[in-house]
């Protein structure tokens, strides 16, 4: 696998990606034409409600999409090469070595019948030419780096002997032990308590920054994104409705959905008597509205919104897909 990356070339480039599920009632498009780039070492947050397609996007990039789901349009370029067309074998070599993955529930992503050491050594030896002893030494180092006390003793323990936060540290060590250049973290802290969540996010950020690894952080929690990510992509009904720097999106959200989302998050010390609410719910894939998928809930929808799907328009270092910005260029 060639690792020659040009300083300004994107590490990962997703072009017009669509993911479709074949069902008895016809194909359901769960992800519909999303496009974004990820620079080396960048942390991109993907935020959206359940069913928005954010996890599926991550799954497609790691090549773990399962039947009946399939990529029916678009391409994924990693370090300049297409990876969506790779065979499962080639993808397996890439995954773990160049692309690491961290999932929500640390207990289900670890093998309960193997010690954490065995799992780390296996991963290291699959991807790096190391002897058993050297791999074990590296595994102990990895555990120490993710802040597990007494790694020499802990390495021979099983996942159930670790607490939730410690388990997620082990998962991070596993994802990073082969030094990948891209990490897909799918809701890495959702199963953890707030005080542990802060530790894990800090750790993930530190580890990736030190190694120059880029991260796609998939979460439903805008607060997590605001504190961790550089850029954020807001997803709704399988589409990216807005993408931009975290600072800009938080300070000045453009898409009506992003605006509503920001205002509906309760905040400590805001003293409000009522929360802003977006009425209704995200449409089901079986009856997506025509035009812009958000128009039935949008306070500013007009005729065009019902008829044509908005294209992504450039705004301040990002894009927004909304007809409001079509007529009067921002």
């Amino acid at each position: 696998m060639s690792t020659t990356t040009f300083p300004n070339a994107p590490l990962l480039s997703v072009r017009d990606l669509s993911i479709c599920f074949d069902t008895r009632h016809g194909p359901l498009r769960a992800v519909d034409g999303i496009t974004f780039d990820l620079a080396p070492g960048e942390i991109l947050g993907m935020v959206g409600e359940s069913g928005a397609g954010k996890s599926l996007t991550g799954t497609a990039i790691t090549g773990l999409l399962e039947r009946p789901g399939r990529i029916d349009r678009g391409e994924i370029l990693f370090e300049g090469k297409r990876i969506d067309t790779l065979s499962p074998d080639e993808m397996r070599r890439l995954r773990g070595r160049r692309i690491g993955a961290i999932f929500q529930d640390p207990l289900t992503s670890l093998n309960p019948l193997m010690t954490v050491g065995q799992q780390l050594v296996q991963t290291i030896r699959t991807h790096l030419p190391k002897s058993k002893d050297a791999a074990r030494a590296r595994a102990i180092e990895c555990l120490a780096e993710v802040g597990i006390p007494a790694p020499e003793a802990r390495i021979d323990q099983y996942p159930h002997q670790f607490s939730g936060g410690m388990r997620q540290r082990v998962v991070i060590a596993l994802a990073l032990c082969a030094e990948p250049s891209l990490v897909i973290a799918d809701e890495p802290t959702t199963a953890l308590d707030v005080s542990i969540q802060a530790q894990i996010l800090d750790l993930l950020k530190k580890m990736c920054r030190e190694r120059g690894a880029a991260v796609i952080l998939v979460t439903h929690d805008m607060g997590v994104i605001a504190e961790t990510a550089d850029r954020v992509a807001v997803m709704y009904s399988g589409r990216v409705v807005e993408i931009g720097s975290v600072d800009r999106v938080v300070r000045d959200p453009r898409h009506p959905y992003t605006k509503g989302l920001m205002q509906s998050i309760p905040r400590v010390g805001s003293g409000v008597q009522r929360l802003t609410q977006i009425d209704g719910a995200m449409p089901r894939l079986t009856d997506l509205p025509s035009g812009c998928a958000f128009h039935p809930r949008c306070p500013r929808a007009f005729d065009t919104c019902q008829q044509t799907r908005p294209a992504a328009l450039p705004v301040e270092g990002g894009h927004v897909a909304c007809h409001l910005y079509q007529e009067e260029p921002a």
Partner: protein
Amino acid sequence: MSTATEQKPLVALDGLSKTFDLSPPLLNRLIERKGRRSLRAVDGLNIDIPRGKTFALVGESGCGKSTVAKLVVGLHGASAGKITFDGTDLTKLAAADRGAFRKRIQMIFQDPYASLNPRWRVRDIIAEPLRSFGITSSKAEERAEVGRLLELVGLSARDGEKFPHEFSGGQRQRISIARAISSKPEFLVCDEPTSALDVSVQSQVLNLMRDLQDELGLTYLFISHDLAVVDFMSDYVGVMYLGRLVEAGPAERIFSAPEHPYTRLLMDTVPDITMGRRNRAPVIGEVPNPITPPPGCSFNPRCPLANDRCRAQAPEARKRAGGSIVACHAVEEGRDTPETVACETGEGARMQLARGAA
């Protein structure tokens, strides 16, 4: 110990405790000489909830907040202490006499996918309390009441014909609320009612719960791990750690000037979209195993202010100026006065507890 003295509270918990027996079976105890083991899930809880107000319990998983909810509605029996509801001690009540109180105390559960029977139509789900408490006398009356309840929670009367799977998560939680208020209760126990919902839907449900409180004069015991949600919903807040109340008081007091080191830690770790990437104080350690809690104050292994007294003696809850109660030796002795306290911990990490009163 009361957090509100102006009127007689609707619900008062006095020294409420719940111990779960985790002992191995008798034979194993005899043969393997293992001792009895128990877990104190809730330990001496004192809470007053005034009528028409919301008391929120916050804490991390395993701190005992859901056990409190189950104790209050009678799904668990208390090991010690009293639960006084409108002047009657529920723990002393015979099973036959509890029925009258069930009608007045209802519960909303966390997961609207698990708490609604998938094989029942929504109108039957909502009508079940009406039938079992004999509130409606005829089918027509029942139908009208179900329709009224559905409209009260923002659904339409026609939705009664549908099954739960035809609704989204937020709509299902509305159905749960309609069922909970169908017996015209005075007191609702809400155990993480919005944590299974997406934010844009969460705000709808929280607004609905506040509207219903104003319209029907409901009293809430609101259980959540989300401080921002608690700040929005509650009048009084109690912070739990390993089965004990470490700090309790009026919500504005707890949020503007938290005193207990654990409360301050919690406040500091909430991700906030407005604060951007601040340099958060690194938090150390994890919640200890509740089967073998540390001696003294259960928070001492994670506390930057802990000293020998904290490691030996559990702190009593003391009343503080500002109307809150705090169980902490350091706060009591005034050891926490410098706003920034730094200390070495076992792992050599430095932890800072800096938080100006916002």
